[in-house]
């Protein structure tokens, strides 16, 4: 009796926890661009000057600057990751003007400090380039405040000597800051700067100071970006794919569940329940670990359901075989479970090997697929082997289910010992 109560409690509590948490879990699943719409670009970075190799640091910094730029353009949650030694993958969602964003992202951020050389035609024109972006220390510009609480931008150059020469020559004159031929500020040189550092006053506006700081830092990044691959999905199309794929998955899953119950009766029912727990756990892992769910991921998931069912089929076929050979149900479940466990582990481990290789060598979609597959196999071993067996054993030990027909075995198929 105790075991029956334990069985009912386990089932009810599990069901309640799943029912209670599912809505908020589903809302928190991080969807990939192919499901929510957006666009993805893979850039290859090459240095502007010379054939120097792209350093890890400058690549990471360029990625960070792309992220900043994407944020400035008002896209939602831009995702920027570096790949290999010279690639940057950019994922943006909720972009209204895609062409403009692409143009802006690729723009090389050519920062120049200029002075007048006499060829100018208007007062705010400066034609002589004194310093270029790469003369500045990477990420060297910072926002600081004076004693008067006025925001200023502190900058740092690579060559003290050059900066000293320029500031000495232009003392008292304006040194204009240009971003891609656009004048953004024209501070006057107040002193000869020999330390390689300087501060620029922008007149009290914090936002303007921040923008100047970001511009200088962007300009100091010497990498040129070339689009290697791009994928753009309209929001409607993404949602449609999500809806269609989930519907297809649900129909497939329901049919599999029916198949299991028809084939294996009571253990089939437990297998179905374990499968639902398995699905819930998978979503939990995705939300908890903040993995991104993509379309190939959903495909891997649905196909993984088929594979999880396989673990149950192997076990139940084995149990039936043992029952047919004349064992009691109790000992058949024990022997079947023991024998099938090794089979299931060996077959699942080989599949994990394949999935891990895919994860290691794949890019984008392949990686997403492999990730789901690995997580799923591990969860499948936990739920479809241990959990469904636990339920079955609880009932068996309570003295229920001891007839072969509960396992879908006909009495006449049982061999006499």
């Amino acid at each position, binding site marked *: 009796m105790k075991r029956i109560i334990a069985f009912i409690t386990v089932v009810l509590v599990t069901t309640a926890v799943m029912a209670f948490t599912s809505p908020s879990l589903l809302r928190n699943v991080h969807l990939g661009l*192919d499901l929510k719409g957006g*666009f993805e670009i893979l850039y290859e970075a090459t240095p502007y000057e010379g054939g120097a190799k792209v350093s890890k640091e400058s690549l990471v910094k360029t990625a960070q600057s792309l992220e900043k730029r994407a944020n400035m353009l008002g896209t939602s949650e831009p995702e920027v990751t570096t790949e290999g030694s010279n690639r940057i993958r950019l994922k943006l969602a909720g972009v209204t003007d*895609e*062409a403009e964003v692409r143009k802006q992202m690729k723009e090389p951020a050519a920062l120049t400090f200029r002075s007048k050389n006499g060829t100018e035609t208007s007062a705010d024109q400066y034609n002589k380039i004194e310093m270029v972006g790469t003369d500045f220390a990477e990420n060297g510009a910072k926002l600081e405040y004076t004693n008067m609480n006025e925001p200023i931008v502190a900058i740092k150059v690579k060559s003290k000597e050059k900066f000293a020469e320029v500031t000495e020559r232009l003392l008292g004159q304006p040194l204009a800051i240009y971003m891609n031929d656009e004048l953004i500020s024209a501070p006057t040189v107040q002193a000869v700067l020999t330390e390689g550092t300087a501060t620029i006053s922008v007149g009290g506006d914090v936002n303007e100071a921040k923008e100047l700081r970001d511009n200088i830092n962007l300009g100091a990044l010497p990498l040129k970006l070339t*689009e*290697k*691959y*791009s*994928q*753009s999905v*309209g929001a*409607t199309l993404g949602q*449609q*794919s*999500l809806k*269609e*794929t989930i519907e*297809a*998955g649900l*129909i*497939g*899953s329901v*049919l*599999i569940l029916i*198949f299991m119950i*028809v*084939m294996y009766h009571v253990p089939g029912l437990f297998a179905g329940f374990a499968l639902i727990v398995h699905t819930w756990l998978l979503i939990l892992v995705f939300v908890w670990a903040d993995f991104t769910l993509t*379309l*190939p991921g959903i*495909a*891997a998931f*649905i*196909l993984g*359901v*088929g*594979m999880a*069912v*396989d673990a149950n*089929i*192997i076990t139940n*076929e084995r149990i039936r*075989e043992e029952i047919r050979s004349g064992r009691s149900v109790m000992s058949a479940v024990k022997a079947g479970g023991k024998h099938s466990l090794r*089979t299931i582990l*060996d*077959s699942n*481990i*080989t*599949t994990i*090997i*394949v*999935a891990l290789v*895919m994860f*290691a*060598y*794949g*890019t984008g*979609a*392949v990686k997403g*697929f492999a990730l789901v597959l690995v997580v799923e196999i591990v969860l499948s071993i936990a739920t479809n082997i241990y959990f469904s067996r636990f339920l079955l054993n609880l009932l068996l030990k309570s003295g229920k289910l001891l007839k072969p027909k509960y396992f879908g075995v*006909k009495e006449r198929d049982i061999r006499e010992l």
Partner: protein
Amino acid sequence: MSFNTKKLNKNLNYVHLSKHFFRLSIILTIIGVISLAVFGLNYGVDFKAGSNVDITLSRTLTEEQIQPILKQIGIDEGSDITLGDNRMNIRFNEVLNEDNDHLLKQEILKLDDKASFEVNTVDTEMAKELAANAIKAVLISCIGIIIYVSIRFEWRFAVAAVIALLHDAFMVVTVFSIFRLEVDLTFIIAVLTIIGYSINDTIVIFDRIRENMRFSKLKTREDLIKLVNNSVSQTIMRSLYTALTVFIAAFFLFLLGGESIRMFSLAMVIGLLFGAYSTIFIASPIWFVLKSKQKNNSAKTSKATN
């Protein structure tokens, strides 16, 4: 729905039958090699430089409405329009630049303001790398499987399993080549998954052979044939049921799933069928052939059946 497994399988001599299936698989492989050599594969945008624009429309547009737009932007050369119900696909052999991409969208939005776009662009270099990575992944997977199976079983099982999985993967490639189905990145994923399933499936039968070997004395070639036949008979129902359940999932994905994973699902469906076939008729018989050679070397047996 309960099959009587004994009645169904008792008379089947899988080892004997496999002669014919070996022949069939060899013929299919030759056809595949020829088809690949002559026709190659119908590479999708992932493997061919260019741009692919998928548009979901709220109403059906005609080619006559689209052609002038392409001409006007100057991107009509090498473009290929496929029209469907409320959808349209335009394939460009050249990579669309941002301006053209933008113009194209603008013009189509003029015709249908509810249009939703999916644009994929690939550089050839990138595509070659994707393919190379995929092949590398397959080879490394094979090595991983050989090592694992050799440790857990023996090398003959590993060799047979790898031949079976390469067979399955190649059969899917063959079908895609013959029927000119589009090969994109998801196809690679599908082939890799099929390899995963194929090995999973094969290992289950090998596991049974390993188990049965423990309790049997293999003196003659006939003993070995009996062992393989019994092991296949004992696991065939599980192989078929599992193939069926995964088939159900893949089939519904193919039928109802999103457009972008349709080819993936189709490759899966084909791969599953070949996977189930090779597990039963190719993998175990290959192991038998390898094993019987060992037997022949150690102790000359009475006579060969073939």
